């Protein structure tokens, strides 16, 4: 089985990109692949705990479930700080990390890298 790395750059409430990323990750995991996801730019909202959209899919809830099933989710710390998201506010099992240490490792370990952005 392979490893898929998804780089997401859209925020959770900007468009359907985060939903697509979650569905893609789930489909790959269901087939037995390892999946890593890195949130960059607006996509750091992916790991914010307490998401409660009224009429849209709750990406945070999906992320919470999927990290428990083995999905690795890391977002860029610099992007978080710029947007006022700090350590302690992330969904359990996700990580506020870095491009250099985390994304580079994820990309280096991946068999496929998919970028989801607009």
């Amino acid at each position, binding site marked *: 089985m392979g490893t898929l790395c998804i780089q997401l*750059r859209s925020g959770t409430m900007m468009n359907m990109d985060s939903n697509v990323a979650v569905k893609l990750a789930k489909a790959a995991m269901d087939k037995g692949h390892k999946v890593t996801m890195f949130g960059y730019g607006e996509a750091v909202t992916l790991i914010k705990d307490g998401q409660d959209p009224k009429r849209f899919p709750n990406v945070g809830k999906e992320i919470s479930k999927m990290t428990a099933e083995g999905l690795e989710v890391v977002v860029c710390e610099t992007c978080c700080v710029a947007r006022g998201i700090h350590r302690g506010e992330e969904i359990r099992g996700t990580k506020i990390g870095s*491009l250099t240490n985390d994304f580079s490792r994820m*990309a280096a370990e991946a068999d496929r*890298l998919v970028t989801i952005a607009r």
Partner: protein
Amino acid sequence: MLVLITRPPYGLEEAFAGARLALGGKVSGVMDETSVLLIGDGTLNALEAQNPAAVAMPSNLEALQDILDLDGQVFCVEPDLRERVGDMKVLDGIKMISWDEAREIVNAHQLVTTF
């Protein structure tokens, strides 16, 4: 990894984010190689005469220079740049290439991410 930059240097975050991502990959020590390919409006990032201080924005040129200083490669599709700005000078060290060469570079990379 190849970082493909398609957006202009200012007005959008993408080009800056792409340059920083390439720099992060370069200094991480875990990527075999990290290169940057500038195409379309992204070729404007190669121009030497940028003055980001005028709009109080960070310099993409500095990030590209850092990549070059770390022996990374920055490629720029020359026809895309020339049709936008004529013969304006680009940062030393950036390799000007044709579209045929750009295709070969993309094909030669296992991982490509687009900004």
